[in-house]
């Protein structure tokens, strides 16, 4: 090739690199990162001293790491505490904090419904929703069996064998 030809063919220093073409399917399919978790429908069960509140954890996703693309389970605050402890121990992430325990509200002389107060439950619900979305979206947490059991199995088997989810 002559020198002149070379000069004409040489790209300028700032010319864009040639990108690969994107297929129509890739461009217009729903994104592969869809994950939505709602914490909703709080219900208080039982009577008097033995009451407790639980929440519906509703999940919708298209991530392959979750076995079910849609799931709905009920969980209470102590279940969230269990999940947090398991993740702190087994995964390498620093797990975010849960919304506060209701200790102050359980003092005898306090007025109102204490921890069954509508306002308190709503605050807690929001905090739990924020918590579970942060956690479930973390690539490292998604590898933990405890997270999948928490989100998608009807009951939590606390005697389970901790471990990682095998990637398919």
């Amino acid at each position: 090739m002559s020198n002149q030809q070379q000069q004409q063919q040489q790209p300028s220093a700032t010319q864009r690199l040639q990108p690969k073409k994107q297929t129509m399917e890739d461009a217009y399919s729903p994104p592969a990162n869809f994950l939505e978790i709602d914490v909703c429908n709080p219900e208080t069960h039982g009577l008097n001293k033995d009451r407790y509140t639980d929440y519906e954890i509703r999940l919708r996703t298209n991530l392959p790491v979750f076995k079910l693309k849609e799931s709905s389970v009920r969980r209470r605050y102590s279940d969230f505490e269990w999940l947090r402890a398991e993740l702190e121990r087994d995964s390498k992430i620093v797990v975010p904090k849960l919304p506060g325990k209701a200790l102050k509200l359980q003092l005898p002389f306090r007025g109102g419904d204490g921890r069954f107060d509508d306002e308190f439950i709503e605050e807690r619900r929001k905090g739990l929703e924020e918590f579970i979305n942060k956690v479930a979206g973390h690539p490292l947490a998604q590898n933990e069996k405890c997270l999948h059991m928490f989100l998608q199995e009807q009951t939590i088997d606390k005697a389970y064998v901790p471990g990682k989810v095998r990637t398919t």
Partner: protein
Amino acid sequence: MSFFGFGPSAEIEILLDGSDTRKAAELKLEDGRKERFPLYYDGETVSGKVNVVLKKSNGKLEHQGIKIEFIGQIDLYFDRGNRHEFVSMVRELARPGILTQNASYNFEFVNVEKPYESYTGSNRLSDLVKEQEICVHTLAQYPDLNSSIKMEVGIEDCLHIEFEYNKSKYHLKDVIVGKIYFLLVRIKIKHMEIQVIKREIAGSGPNALNENETLAKFEIMDGAPVRGESIPIRLFLSGYDLTPTMRDINKKFSVKYYLNLVLVDEEERRYFKQQEVTLFRKADKKRRPIASNMIERGIFHHRTAQFGGPQPPPQQPQQQTVESPELETGSTHVSPAMPSKPVAAAGQSEEPDDDEAEADDDEEDEDEEPEAEDEDNDGDRQEDRDSKNGQL
């Protein structure tokens, strides 16, 4: 010019030749001030005049000899007591005697080797050539073989990207052209940015002090990409305060530059990939005087291999396909808003990969036809700056 008091009897003045026409360069001093010093290149003659002015017009100065020294030295801030001299030349100006009148001595340090560029660091290294009040720039020719950097990295099943930068060696006014190609996106990305990071490494071994400085941050994408998308990168280096990459200067310190690609997801988790790039100072069009026989021979050898085809086009770059590393093997790091505990071998372990890559480049030199790009125009001469800079 500099004045040194000589007690009450005389004053000494050093005047460098051509100081009014010589280019000057700015250096930041230890106290943060910027000062301009005359600029010299390796191999250039440093010459001038020394004036000794007697304070009293009929006074006399008895002395044991007058000499001028040319010193190149490295000061490490944390090692204050030790100044390391790597160049030292002396000229005797006058034998011991008595000065009864003002005297002026010419001096000339011919073809002085100035192997290292002046550098003032934030890691508190002071100027290399401070006492001489001159500034040295080490120039390099446009590298012959400047392959692109192309790598596939990611987190298993979550995020796979292929990034490409058009070169591995950039000059200080160059443009970084590249692209990011998304192979798999299972996280919700909010934006992506590229950063230029300077790392100073002072000392060696266990006492090495690292200091990182982010010189530039540049957002290259806003919003969530999907699989198959390519995001272009164009980063002009002339806007930033950069020096050439320095490797193991006098075995005392190094300055390295990295491009840091950072992706941030909706939960403020950061995914990043650091990649070292070599920066060099490009010579002007004018040829510099040849300083030694060795260099002459070197040029001759390279010329025979010189004239050649275009630079390897970006479509067929030096392929560095590193398989997307698992988090554990460490060149990609997930740092969530909830900071993660240190992952084994995570973070900065990509140095071995880089070294490997560089080694490969050298081996392939024979087959590649080095380019003669017109806009850069210095493809005509090559010098192995590396050995002069102390790189092994």
